[in-house]
């Protein structure tokens, strides 16, 4: 009986400790970020390329089809009320406020997050981080900060691209496939989308960018430096990022409504 209690105590204690370490890690990254941006922009640019530019294809393809399927579903349901023209509104609000940021964050975790944590985990496993430490270079500053900042910069841009391509996909499906009037499609959208909706989407994309990049870097840095440990770290990156993004999405929406 006491051993069960002790186990619970130990687990809770360990959870609190990890959570605290995570906060401190976040603060450390944030503290170094502005200087990294000003003094070594080249390092950040390389990471924006790795996490952002290289994720573009998957983001665009997925965005197109998500927009398209929203138009199909929206049309099918709106047609029952003779309100097919509102399909633009439905698609735009769904993409801008919810699906754009959330799906982009999930794709980001799968494409860029795993790449980040496995790269950092492997650098740890092959002593590259120790080697830097021995060359009097702080690996947190030199390796983790540029990757974190790069991810944070990439995410809102990826979300914007995803949403635009999604609208374009919806336009293609609605106008060419379902023959909704193109003028009505855009006009209805413009009448009901408020600048506040876009602000909400941007805010979410910034939060998700911070969370997804932070988790990827954290998992990689704390990976057990073996092949198995690195593999586990990449899996954890995807799973934890997905959970965190969905929970945060709910919380932000609840607060903003």
């Amino acid at each position, binding site marked *: 009986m006491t051993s069960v209690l002790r186990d619970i105590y130990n687990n809770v204690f360990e959870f609190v400790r990890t959570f605290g370490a995570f906060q401190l890690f976040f603060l450390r990254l944030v503290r170094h970020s502005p200087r990294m941006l000003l003094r070594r922009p080249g390092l950040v640019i390389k990471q924006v390329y790795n996490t952002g530019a290289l994720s573009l294809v998957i983001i665009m393809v997925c965005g197109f089809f998500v927009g398209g399927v929203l138009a199909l579903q929206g049309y099918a349901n709106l047609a029952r009320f003779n309100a097919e023209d509102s399909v633009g509104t439905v698609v735009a609000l769904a993409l801008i406020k919810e699906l754009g940021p959330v799906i982009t964050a999930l794709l980001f975790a799968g494409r860029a997050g795993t790449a980040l944590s496995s790269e950092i985990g492997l*650098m740890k496993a092959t002593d590259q981080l*120790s*080697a830097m430490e*021995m*060359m*009097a*270079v*702080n690996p947190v500053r030199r390796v983790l900060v540029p990757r974190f900042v790069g991810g944070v910069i990439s995410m809102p841009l990826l979300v914007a691209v995803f949403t635009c391509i999604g609208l374009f996909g919806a336009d293609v499906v609605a106008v060419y496939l379902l023959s909704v009037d193109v003028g009505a499609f855009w006009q209805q959208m413009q009448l009901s989308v408020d600048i506040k909706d876009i602000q909400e989407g941007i805010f979410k994309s910034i939060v998700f960018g911070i969370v997804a990049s932070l988790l990827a870097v954290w998992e990689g840095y704390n990976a057990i430096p073996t092949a198995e440990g690195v593999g586990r770290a990449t899996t954890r990156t995807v799973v934890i990022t997905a959970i965190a993004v969905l929970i945060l999405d709910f919380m932000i929406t609840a607060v903003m409504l």
Partner: protein
Amino acid sequence: MEADSENLIEIRDLMYSRGARVIFKGLNLTIKRGEVTAFMGPSGTGKTTLLRLITRQLIPQQGAIYVNGVDIATLNQRKLYELRQRFGMLFQNGALLTDLNVFENVAFPLREHTKLTNRLIRHVVLTKLHAVGLRGAADMSPTELSGGMARRVALARAMVMDPDILIYDEPFVGLDPISMGVIVRLVRRMNDALGITSIVVSHDVAEVSTVADRSYLISDGKVAASGSPDELQAANSELVRQFMHGMADGPVAFHFDAPDYAEQLLGRDSE
């Protein structure tokens, strides 16, 4: 302890344990300026741990490590980094940065710590690569290199800041005889030509004998024997003989601690 005595590194009563496992219990040793010092010992005696302690990647629970007369446990991060710039370390697998090519790997410490112009960096890097015979591989990626080549590039990188102390972690492991010969020659030449102090961790008795001025045989958390290679060869302690001549059984038992053999084989089933 004076800074300019002939002892560059002194380790006093070092105690270190990881979890319940005691790795060092009262280790004492000194490393003399300008010599090649070797740490030898059976695997699992914590030789690599010792290197990490000397470079303060780990901190001892008790005892002290003095480098140039300064207790390194007392240094703050800035002072520590200043000290580390005077160390060059060669990791077991080279530990080259995989996102940079060979040239940029060697240039890395210069770019991080100096404000040299690109031309000057190019000059220094090519000189160091030439010294290890890999000037031609400057544009290659570390993943394209063989183990021996990677280690030579890592050596060029370790030297690029002109360190006072070069540390080699298992430099002879897993090399073909030619690469091994190259590394052995490089270790000796760097030491003598540049006036560097070298520390070599290895369990390769033959190679260490050709390269080291002084060897420490570490076993059971302490220095079991020390002296020049010849002195160690001649020593008549059982442990030293077992290690130097590679005998399977002796003070270091062939068998890991286990319950009685016959009992384990027969006992379980008969229950």
